[in-house]
């Protein structure tokens, strides 16, 4: 059986901001039904990379393929339409707005004839409540403000929103970095659930333990470059940790990773 084309393939992505080289040749593939962890210390280029993937930045050079076909995104909307949804660190959630309004923000289902089109809020409320129930969040009232939810709950709402709207690839930007232990396990459990649905997940973190908990493959970024990609079981948490810190010689790491550098 021929291996299906990866959902997303990023080839030798470079991104320059003026004289600053944020990315100098990063390659990553994301397959269906896997969690691909992107690790790296602060300033390694993780954020720039995922923003390129999400259509926020245009790569200076390099290729991006979706289902094996080259694409160029004109903006975040284009990426979204291609099935790449991003859950940003700052959540893309608006605390003052209700859970429902946040859930459907930018994609409100409308009813009626123009110019009397209105948002079908009954439908929105029902879907929101059902989706929240499915991931085990007790939303007493979908009309309550997102600000009343915990950090973990907000992450889960953001993820379930992306899934509901048909994302094929989910980019999660440090979803667990600001969370407590219980909140983190809630989010990790949900990430695993999403993976089992057959989505490709790009999980950005600098917490190795969180990565090991759900990841199938691990890519380490350092100073705008890929240090290497390893599959689950090929690499230990300690090795990943050392690599992120950039404390060992590249050659030595290369052998440990089975020559994938």
């Amino acid at each position, binding site marked *: 059986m021929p291996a299906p084309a990866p959902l997303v393939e990023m080839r030798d992505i470079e991104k320059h901001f003026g004289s600053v080289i944020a990315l100098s040749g990063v390659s990553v593939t994301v397959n269906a039904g896997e969690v691909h962890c992107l690790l790296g210390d602060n300033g390694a280029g993780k954020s720039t990379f995922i923003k390129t993937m999400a259509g926020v930045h245009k790569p200076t050079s390099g290729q991006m393929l979706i289902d094996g076909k080259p694409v160029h995104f004109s903006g975040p909307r284009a990426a979204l339409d291609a099935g790449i949804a991003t859950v940003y660190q700052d959540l893309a959630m608006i605390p003052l707005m209700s859970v429902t309004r946040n859930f459907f923000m930018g994609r409100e289902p409308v009813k009626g004839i123009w110019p009397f089109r209105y948002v079908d809020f009954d439908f929105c409320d029902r879907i929101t409540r059902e989706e929240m129930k499915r991931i085990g969040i007790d939303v*007493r009232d979908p009309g309550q403000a997102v600000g009343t939810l915990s950090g973990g709950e907000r992450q889960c709402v953001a993820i379930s929103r992306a899934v*509901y709207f048909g994302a094929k690839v989910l980019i999660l930007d440090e979803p667990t970095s600001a969370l407590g232990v219980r909140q983190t396990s809630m989010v990790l459990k949900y990430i695993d659930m999403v993976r089992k649905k057959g989505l490709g997940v790009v999980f950005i973190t600098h917490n190795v333990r969180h990565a090991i908990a759900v990841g199938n493959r691990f890519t380490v970024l350092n100073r705008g470059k890929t240090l290497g990609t390893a599959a689950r079981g090929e690499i230990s948490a300690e090795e990943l940790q050392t690599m992120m810190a950039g404390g060992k010689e590249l050659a030595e790491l290369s052998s440990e990773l089975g020559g994938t550098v």
Partner: protein
Amino acid sequence: MSQQDAAGPSQVPSEVPGHVRDERLKEASFILRMMRRPELGAVMGLVIVTVFFIMVANATMFEFSGIMNFLAPAAQLGILAIGASLLMVGGEFDLSVGSMVAFTGLIFAACVVTMGLPLPFAIAITLAFAAAMGLLNGQIVIHTGLPSFIVTLAFLFILRGLSLVGLKWATGGSTQLRGVREAATESPLDAFFYEIFAGDAFEGLFAWLAANDLIAKFPNGQPKVTGIPIEIIWFALIAILAAWVLTRTRYGNWIFASGGDQEAARNSGVPVRRVKTSLFMITACCAALVAILTVLDSGSTDARRGFQKEFEAIIAAVIGGCLLTGGYGSAVGAAIGAVIFGMVLIGLTYTTIDQDWYLVFLGAMLLMAVFFNNIIRKRVTGER
């Protein structure tokens, strides 16, 4: 991929059998629901002010004619305040609306009197001009990234100055332009549009009511109130429309989102720039409408039209529950805020209280409203 489709919209309703209403819904109590409404403060304010005047003022204030007396100025302010509230929910300010009233009043009067254009054309040109100015305001704010407070403060002065200069130019030295009413009622077409933008509505109904002794009338048979001042009708229609747009439509959700967090909104696919620009245009058009209504009503325009109205409009919006930081508020609240204003402004003349207390009231009300709004917001959103 079929598994992932399972999360799609199509199959969801079938998964939860039977009744979908969540039994936990009850936990959000009636009081909390009411507290969550941004208009709460305004409604409370209206009740307090009404009770106060019922106790203090001459009883004629709450007769029909008295109510029309304070609703008319409330309506003019209200139209501005509704525009201001939408813009504030969208996260921006417009300090130029007062000057915009003067400036568009000049444009309108010049079209009608100086250029002798038919009324509908003059109205269309005035609104188009206001929209263009709003577009300019919006584009400057968006492209420079400057706070709208500063940009529109600049236009507060620019437009006021242009109104003075333009009036002198149009009249040959005066800062007042007269003769609008005469010029605006020349043809039957003009007269038809004049009815929509000036005078009273439902005059026939009121005459009939008076003839049948259903409302108060003068000895000569004329009703004491000949109709509802047209600006009140405009005010009510705009309030209903704005409330519907803000709370029920997609554009309304985008307004909340743009004001709540524009980055988050943009990441979710909301066209933040378009939303904000259109809001500046709407606010300016509200100012132009007020200009048209007041110029036709008085038959003249002058450079002091709309003086300090931008502040009153913003205060009314804040009393109506708009947060200064954006993302939260209500058009209905702003409308109620404007009614409170009109009530106090006119109501004081029905009492023995010195009318200049109005300004004291204005400031105190603003302070209380901001204070109240902040408390409510923290309660409702669980902010700590």
